[in-house]
């Protein structure tokens, strides 16, 4: 993907995370932990499980709509990263020839089932991770991580990284444009040119780090990055966390899809 579109993609996702909706307002810790629980629950299903995964789609659906995130954007991003999962998963239908009866008279190779299961899990996990960042601004995630006990050096590293991705992103975009403008076709994308660009960028970055260090010293920096403690758990956080956990538990332990299916079959027969 071209540099510009990658860069603007990150920028767009970042902008989404600063909206003001119910989901955006939740405490970042709550969202982080419930998302992790969600992910664990989803991947804990056995490799042939497909039906039981459907109810979990409810979570991304709610985040998407309540958080006012455009579904098309998330879908596109999910598709973009899918090749590796597909690459690994596609071997299942080729290698696993067990037959499974789905409907009377219709049997499917077990490999296709496990492939479908991988795809579904992939969709659920990737979309939830994206939705987490689309509904929680990155600095608040970092504060959450700090308060959850991750090393402060790592967290300040994340904060710096986030801040300067956008600054260096602009810088790289200018360099890449200059390269493409003068490379007439493919020649400018050689490794040699890349190495020079990266080298120049690297040196500029070292100099920038020096200037940043001065600016930090000017404001009393002595080696510790301060952490602000602005976030407080509210009742809506607790309610949210609780309902997510209950839902996850039900979806994990009871075959919700089967029950609903049985119920409707009962009605129609």
């Amino acid at each position, binding site marked *: 993907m071209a*540099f510009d579109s*990658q860069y603007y993609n*990150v920028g767009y*996702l970042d902008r989404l995370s600063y909206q003001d909706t119910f989901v955006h307002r939740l405490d970042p810790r709550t969202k982080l932990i419930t998302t992790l629980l969600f*992910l*664990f629950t989803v*991947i*804990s299903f056995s*490799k042939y499980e*497909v*039906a039981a995964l459907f109810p979990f*789609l*409810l979570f991304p659906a*709610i985040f998407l709509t*309540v958080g006012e995130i455009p579904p098309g954007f998330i879908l596109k991003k999910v598709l*973009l*990263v899918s090749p*590796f*999962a597909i690459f*690994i998963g596609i071997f299942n239908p080729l*290698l696993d020839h*067990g037959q499974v*009866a*789905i*409907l009377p008279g219709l049997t499917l190779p077990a490999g296709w089932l*496990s492939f479908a299961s*991988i795809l579904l899990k992939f969709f659920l*996990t990737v979309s939830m991770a994206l939705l987490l960042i689309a509904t929680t601004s*990155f600095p608040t995630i970092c504060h959450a991580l700090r308060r959850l006990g*991750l090393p402060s*050096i*790592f967290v300040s*590293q*994340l*904060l710096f*990284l986030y801040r300067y*991705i956008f*600054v260096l*992103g602009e810088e*790289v975009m200018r360099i*890449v444009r200059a390269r493409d403008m003068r490379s007439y076709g*493919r020649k400018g994308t*050689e*490794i040699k040119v*890349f*190495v020079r660009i*990266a*080298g120049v*960028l690297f040196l500029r*970055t*070292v100099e*920038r*780090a020096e200037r940043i*260090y001065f600016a*930090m010293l000017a404001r009393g920096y002595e*080696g510790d990055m301060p952490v602000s403690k602005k976030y407080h758990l509210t009742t809506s956080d607790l309610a949210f966390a609780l309902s997510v956990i209950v839902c996850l538990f039900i979806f994990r332990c009871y075959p919700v*899809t*089967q029950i609903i*299916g049985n119920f409707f*079959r009962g009605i129609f027969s």
Partner: protein
Amino acid sequence: MHMADALISPAVGATMWAGSLAVLGYSSRKIRETIDNKTIPLMGVMGAFIFAAQMINFTIPGTGSSGHLGGGMILAALLGPYAAFVVVASVLTVQALFFADGGLLALGCNVWNLGLYPCFIGYYLIYKPIAGDGGNYRRIFIASLLSVIVALQFGAFSVVLETILSGKSELPFHTFVLLMQPIHLAIGLVEGIVTAGILSYVKNARPEILDTGAVSRPPAAGLPCKNILIVFVVLAVLTGGVLSWFASTSPDGLEWSIEKVTGKGELAEQEKGIAPVLKEIQEKTAFLPDYNFKQAHKEKPETEKVPAWPGIDTGTSVSGVVGGGIVLGIVFLIGYGIRIFKRQ
């Protein structure tokens, strides 16, 4: 290559998280002890540099496909291993969030695969001994090329192990290894050349950065390789131990996957030509006694049974299909409803 959430089991994900967190904590402490304040902002901006440089594509000669920079080795050479590991971890975290590269659960795997190997193995065992204090260009070139390739081979092999142990993929161990290692040899070659190029460029323009450690290098860089090796072996054994413990308690874990690893009858037949080679690889890779790749290989009859659909009869799976459709409908309706409700 980034591991994806969908391909790992909770046990593997949790173990790798634990492993990566442990190294992260250790590195952070080391940084605090040894590095001067100036390095903290430098690390941050370096992370952004790697992140940005990774988004620039370049053409790999002869193939026309495009490659991109890995970065772990560059960071290790410039910042020292501990700082580099923390930076790599942060870059991967941001990528997991903003690009959905990998995923949050697989983040532990990815930090381990792409951070630990270049920063510790690649740096201490290969880069540092060969390049020394960054004295001459040829040494830097050889050192970066070798260390990047080796680190990537380790990384690729870990991806294989993690996938196999998770048991979500049907890929037999040996096929997977034969698939991953050569691909990553090629990637490593390109990345190694790029890494060497950038380091030489830096050496040329600002020699003091590489030579005198103007970019701070922890005094611990002189730490004997032995210590690192010992820490490493201990970590590996622990990880292995935890993994197999998890595996023995979870039904779809290790034992089950060993069955898969050895492959099915027909596959083994197809591969007669390369079978001896594969066997050798397997023997070399049987690093945990419990694993017993070889043994399982001999017990072919057992593996011949076709994996049956785990205990579900046709009736319930009909319900599954019907229910699945209905659940999808409900989810869609709920989403749609919220949307309409919000518009008002």
